[in-house]
């Protein structure tokens, strides 16, 4: 998105469903419940939706499946699949479609029953032919190798990685919607079962069910809805590879580019951001994205997160809902970064509500650090 589209669309509804375990429900059931929750939040009906933005883990034509399930006939759909970043990416296409008059009510929606369906990652994507023979465990082996390289180049420690998980849990502790809310110490993380060196099971995101949805409209009518509008001030994507073996620098992600362009479109800098919601599939993600988005220098992410600095009461509020590490992670987490950022701005965050948030950042990651999408959201005051 360029600066021309700054503030042209607004989130007027958010919703979620099936957090934790959604027994007896299919992924599309959870998707539909999430859609109803977000539309209810916006005071709209499914029949108002004419733009649908959706992808799911289990199908190659998920937007069509979702439209059919919901009983709607959208005049604009986007089912671009870039992994968990897809739902942040849809902020760009939804804003473009709304601005161009291609639709009037855009629904971004996702649902998964990953936990109760099998407890494993349900995916329609095939392992890459030149990696599959070596049996990497997707996606953890990829992130483990990025973490190993970060430790090698910058001296990042396992203790620093663990502190990311500890901080996420500390936020989740205050969030009644979060799946894992019990105490978690650095020692718990370090002593947990190693799954892919240097990452233990506590360095990895949860496996839960859950869905989320977001309703967007053009900014000119955004104040006609029950909740305070949250404007999309900037959003940008950058895609660098698909297979981890093709990643050029394991310690630098395309978030550097997506972030710079999102900030430029929004006309703000990292220092202006009051709430930061990052896709933390693994503890290394948070460190990489804080560096690449400019919250600290490259290589300093480990020290930056150490000892509660991104926990409640720390220097920077990161993943205020508990993130994918402790709140919810149903296969793809991206949409929840946007929902939590929007709720922090609206003032109805489910856990710790930060004071007077006007600017928040949501960052989506897809594939194996492959697709990076950054969005800057703002209150009415930021227009």
């Amino acid at each position: 998105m360029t600066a021309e589209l700054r503030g042209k669309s607004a989130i007027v509804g958010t919703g979620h469903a099936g957090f934790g375990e959604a027994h007896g429900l299919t992924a599309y059931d959870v998707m539909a419940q999430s859609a109803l929750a977000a539309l209810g939040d916006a005071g709209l009906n499914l029949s108002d939706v004419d733009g649908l933005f959706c992808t799911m883990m289990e199908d190659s034509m998920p937007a069509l499946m979702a439209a059919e399930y919901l009983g709607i006939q959208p005049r604009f759909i986007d089912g671009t699949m870039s992994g968990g970043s897809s739902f942040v990416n849809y902020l760009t296409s939804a804003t473009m479609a709304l601005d161009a008059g291609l639709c009037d009510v855009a629904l971004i929606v996702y649902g998964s029953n990953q936990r109760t369906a099998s407890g494993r990652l349900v995916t329609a994507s095939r392992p890459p032919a030149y990696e599959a023979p070596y049996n990497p465990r997707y996606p953890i082996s990829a992130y483990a190798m990025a973490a190993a390289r970060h430790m090698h180049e910058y001296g990042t420690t396992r203790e620093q990685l663990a502190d990311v998980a500890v901080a996420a849990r500390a936020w989740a502790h205050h969030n009644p919607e979060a799946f894992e809310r019990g105490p978690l110490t650095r020692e718990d993380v370090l002593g947990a079962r190693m799954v892919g060196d240097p990452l233990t099971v506590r360095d990895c995101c949860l496996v839960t069910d859950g869905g989320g949805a977001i309703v967007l409209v053009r900014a000119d009518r955004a104040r006609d809805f029950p909740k305070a509008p949250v404007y999309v001030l900037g959003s940008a994507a950058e895609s660098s590879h698909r297979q981890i073996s093709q990643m050029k620098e394991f310690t630098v992600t395309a978030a550097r580019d997506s972030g710079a362009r999102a900030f430029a479109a929004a006309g703000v800098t990292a220092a202006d951001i009051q709430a930061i919601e990052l896709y933390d599939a693994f503890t290394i993600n948070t460190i990489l994205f804080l560096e690449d988005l400019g919250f600290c220098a490259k290589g300093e992410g480990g020290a930056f997160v150490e000892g509660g600095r991104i926990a409640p009461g720390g220097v920077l509020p990161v993943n205020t809902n508990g993130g994918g590490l402790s709140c919810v992670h149903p296969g793809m987490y991206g949409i929840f970064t946007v929902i939590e950022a929007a709720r922090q701005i609206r003032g109805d965050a489910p856990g710790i509500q930060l004071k007077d948030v006007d600017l928040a950042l949501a960052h989506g990651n897809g594939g194996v650090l492959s697709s990076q999408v950054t969005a800057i959201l703002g209150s009415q005051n930021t227009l």
Partner: protein
Amino acid sequence: MPDAKGPDQIFQGALTKGEILLPKCEDCGAYHFFPRVLCPHCHGAAISWKQATGKGRVHTTTVVRRKPEWGGDYNVCVVELDEGVRMMSRVEGIAPGEVAIDMAVTAFVGEAEGAPAVLFKPSEG
């Protein structure tokens, strides 16, 4: 031409003969991997095949933890070959946790998942 071979077939066919061939761009001179019909660096389409030196270094590595009854832990790594290309593989002949970043390794054609595959061992000396 029914007997024409695509890049994937050329690479895999060489492996079945115990050879490691790498695609090289005739326009810019750079190697690439995985095999393709074009050069991802300059986008030229004139590709030739060269015998790999087999020399490389571990760029990054992990141990996939697996229960002993399912076969135990194993190594997964990304090796950068002297030709400048990277490939996923594993280092054999040492414990999976002993594989280290920057370790010098040498390629050989072994077997993975029942098919010929490029594997590595620590370089001697």
